[in-house]
């Protein structure tokens, strides 16, 4: 592979544009320069740190360390799901439902890919397992947090209509069906958009990275397709479990709507 290696100065050169945006903001009093600075510094620190961690992890290539890394990723993503919800389920459900369904979906899909398609040696090789798990996890996280947020918001907003259906003899899932459909649609939206744009409007980030790193485009495309299928699978599986679980928790065994199980709105 003929990778063109990047030095710190190469990166510094292109970061000029970020600097330029900041200066423009300052000059025109747009007020985004502070946020831009913080986000940029944060990104540089996070990525440099993860680069160091991955280098270490790849050199050790041990199962316990790989699992530990995956656990840390899961905990961060779970917190992110809970934080992004306007009204979340109260108590452990608020953190647990999103984290559990996301982990279940991402782990299942990653395991199938490692065992079935990629088959690295050893199977848990962090060079494959961690980036794959991360991509799948990140997308499942976005889908599930959007889905759960939509579901709980709709349950509160549409409460009179949902309770009317219940009063007319509907079961809990019949009464919540419109809210669940809306949640599934919203959760899938970013994925559908990404698929529609892939290759025509935008070259997916991973594929671009691989091509720039010297991989033949056809090979990069195959990897990208693999990733896309995994991401769609994990998002769909996780979203479905999360929305079903959320609807379950928002109602009780007597098929009553229980919006009292939501924490106060943020």
């Amino acid at each position: 592979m003929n990778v063109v290696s990047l030095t710190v100065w190469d990166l510094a050169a292109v970061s000029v544009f970020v600097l330029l945006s900041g200066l423009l903001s300052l000059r025109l009093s747009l007020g985004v320069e502070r946020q831009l600075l913080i986000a940029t510094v944060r990104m540089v620190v996070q990525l440099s740190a993860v680069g160091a961690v991955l280098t270490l992890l790849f050199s050790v290539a041990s199962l316990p360390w790989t699992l530990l890394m995956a656990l840390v990723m899961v905990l961060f993503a779970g917190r992110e799901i809970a934080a992004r919800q306007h009204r979340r389920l109260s108590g452990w459900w608020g953190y647990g439902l999103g984290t559990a369904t996301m982990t279940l979906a991402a782990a299942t899909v990653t395991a199938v890919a490692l065992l079935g398609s990629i088959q690295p040696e050893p199977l848990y090789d962090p060079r494959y397992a961690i980036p794959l798990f991360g991509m799948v996890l990140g997308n499942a996280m976005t889908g599930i947090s959007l889905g759960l947020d939509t579901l709980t918001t709709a349950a509160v907003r549409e409460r009179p209509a949902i309770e009317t259906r219940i009063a007319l003899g509907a079961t809990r899932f019949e009464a919540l069906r419109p809210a669940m459909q809306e949640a599934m649609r919203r959760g899938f939206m970013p994925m559908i958009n990404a698929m529609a744009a892939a290759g025509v409007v935008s070259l997916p980030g991973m594929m671009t990275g691989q091509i720039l790193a010297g991989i033949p485009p056809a090979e990069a495309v195959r990897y990208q397709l693999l990733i896309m299928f995994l991401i769609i699978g994990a998002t769909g599986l996780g979203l479905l479990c999360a929305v079903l679980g959320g609807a379950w928790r928002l109602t009780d065994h007597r098929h009553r709507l229980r919006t009292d199980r939501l924490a106060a709105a943020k």
Partner: protein
Amino acid sequence: MRLIAKGITTSVLTDCSLEVPGGEIGTLRGPSGAGKSLLLRAIADLDPHEGEVWFDGVAQSETSGPQWRRQVRLVPAEAAWWDDCVGPHFRSLDEARAMAGLLDLPKDCMTWQVARLSTGEKQRLGFLRAVEDRPAVLLLDEPTAALDAETGQNVETMIRSLRDDGAAILLVTHSDAQANRLADRRYAMETGRLKAAV
């Protein structure tokens, strides 16, 4: 065939008990905020509560929620809608059209958009939707509050005919006159406590 509630208790209601036989109308009166609507919700099993309700000898807790509510039907004061059009809210359009005429609603009301309904039309259509399949028990929360006198009379006529067909009806009303016209038995509620009134 009678509706019996014993010891209904929630955070607002205290030990509420009542009895309405089939073919009778019980009126429930009391100041706003006394808990009348919450009692109706508990009887329909829409809120968690202590105490038990029986209809026709079968306890609420021995029946599934949906099964119970197919017999014991709450008609809230404000009707809510889940579709843009009126028709999809009804089980049988033929039955609904036939009954709509009795409440001064034109035959084509099933094709109306919910967004253009007046308050009174919403109330009448919400009432129709709830009684369309002739549930055995009706819990009516101010069913004529948004109606003019004449339309209100038509709704009362339908309530009487449902009673004469054997339904047990519990009716929340703020109107003395309405209670006098319809009540076979009376209950009064104050700060979550229920008492039989003469």
